């Protein structure tokens, strides 16, 4: 447990098989690519409720 009260883990990479090690490597690589893509494409998405609220604002 760390000072914030969160659980912490200690892992040894040498405990992984070659297949697992490669899978981790690949998963991390893919996840980072996914995150960067998500960040770059992030934009404001308004749902129906937001639209209604905005309409109300304008009328008042």
């Amino acid at each position, binding site marked *: 447990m760390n000072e914030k009260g969160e659980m912490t883990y200690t*892992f*040894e*990479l040498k405990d992984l098989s070659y297949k697992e*090690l*490669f899978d*981790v*490597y690949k998963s991390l690589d893919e996840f980072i690519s996914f995150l960067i893509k998500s960040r770059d494409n992030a934009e*404001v998405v308004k749902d129906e409720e937001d639209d209604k609220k905005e309409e109300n604002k304008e009328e008042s």
Partner: protein
Amino acid sequence: MNFKEYIDKDIEEKKILLDLLPMNTESRVRKYKETVDEIVKNYKGILSSVREYVNYKYAKLYPNKIDRSSQIKQKEDEIDRFKSLVMMTNPKVSFYEKMGFDMLIFDLEHYYNNSLTNNNEIIKKMLICFKDAGINVSAKDFRINVFSYNYMVNLFYLISGNDVDIEIFKKIFWKCPGVYINIIICFRMLLLKYERKLDKYAKSRDNLLLKDNGLSNREELIKKLYSLKLEKKQLEEKDESDIILDFINGDLDFSVYNNSINNTYGELDYFLINSIDTNNESVLNHALNVIENFYNNLLEYQVMYSNNDLIDNIVNIYNKSVASVEKKQLVKDYNLQVKNISKMEAKAKKLKVNKIFSSENIDKVFAPAEFNQCIEQQNILNEIYKEYANLDNQYFNIVLKNMIETNSFVSVVIGIVVFYPFFSKSIIKNVFELETVDEINEKYDQLFDLYYNPYRKLIDMKLLFSKENFEQRLMDSYRFDNLNVNETTYEEDNQNLIIINHEKLINKIKISKFSHTIDEIEFLVEVSKIKDSEKEAS
């Protein structure tokens, strides 16, 4: 939970978390991006540590390629040396082939494919052959024509260590493009003149040549050639590092092996009629041995059939010009041709144009009076050259008569090709429509290897003048050995399948003995793919 399980779980959780983050306002999007940046930062740190460890493991597992190229080159050189010895000590051929005159003349006949220096080297080699046999040849022996004489005067001067401007040879060639033909004619005259002396010399050096190479007889020489070929084959065989590197480079498809690696002998089902007990070592070794022989025979079959036209061509020559003629008559025809050529040579020598030899000034030839005679002389020389080609054919007819009459196997035809390279190379050139000497030599070497093949079997089985179904005979023989050979085996697609399955079987057996595990190989293959894509991206 291990690290993989933790990462998989954490990635899923992070994805859910990001999905839940609201993005309906600019500030919320900004917050989303900040969260993503934080995760990216954290994960890049993790990736960096993992990458460092992966690189460490990759480098540790990466096979060290053992470079055997210099050893292979050394074996090739030895094989070449012993191949020459096979020809030089062959009791079936004359001094013409033993001493290599046939091929030197063949090479000089293709003077237009060689550099001027190469042509001079070929001529020098022929002069050395005469010298070795105790025959003194001088420029005077080339006085059939003013240009050939002047060429040789300069070449002898050069050979003696004097400075000769290479331009003089070019100048002579430009004045007389037939100069090499004329030099060849002079060599042919010398070969006829000193036939007995050269033959005696060539025969006398057989034992000496064998002894100098640590051999006591020709049988030993052939055995040595076979063992050198097998040693070279072993050196060329792919070892653990070669195969793994082939997987890494994509030359071998790892997925094909990965899916069936646990079934090491799976390909036996493709080759055998009835399954065998692979746990029984002697049964297994016998089956593998039979498959290996079958595979080597298939390679022999492919080369044999790719040369069908050549074999047919020689058989046609035999049927057309040799089969119905008595050997005595063939010899008589040959001797008559020799006399005919001598007369033509005498006629060429008598022409007045030869009187200017003493001046050694080739420009004089272009004085109007000599010029016409010079052309007349060259025409006669060109005719003589053609007659020598006919003489060669008559000689070849006698060879065919001697060899095919006594035996009617394809091996004899291939043997003729191997023993008489001068004729075979001319036929190879025509049958396969080859242009360059290198192409012709490559084809000739293929036939030499077909004849002197440690696994040779089929060319001894196939009859020349028989209409038997050869494939049927092979099929019957192989099926006795439990090999699944049928009517379609020798179709081209199936031949390729045999080669593919053989490679797979051999590789799988090797892989089962590797120090690398299949997981380690897969790791190397997959990591190298990522490394390649990273390289491309950067």
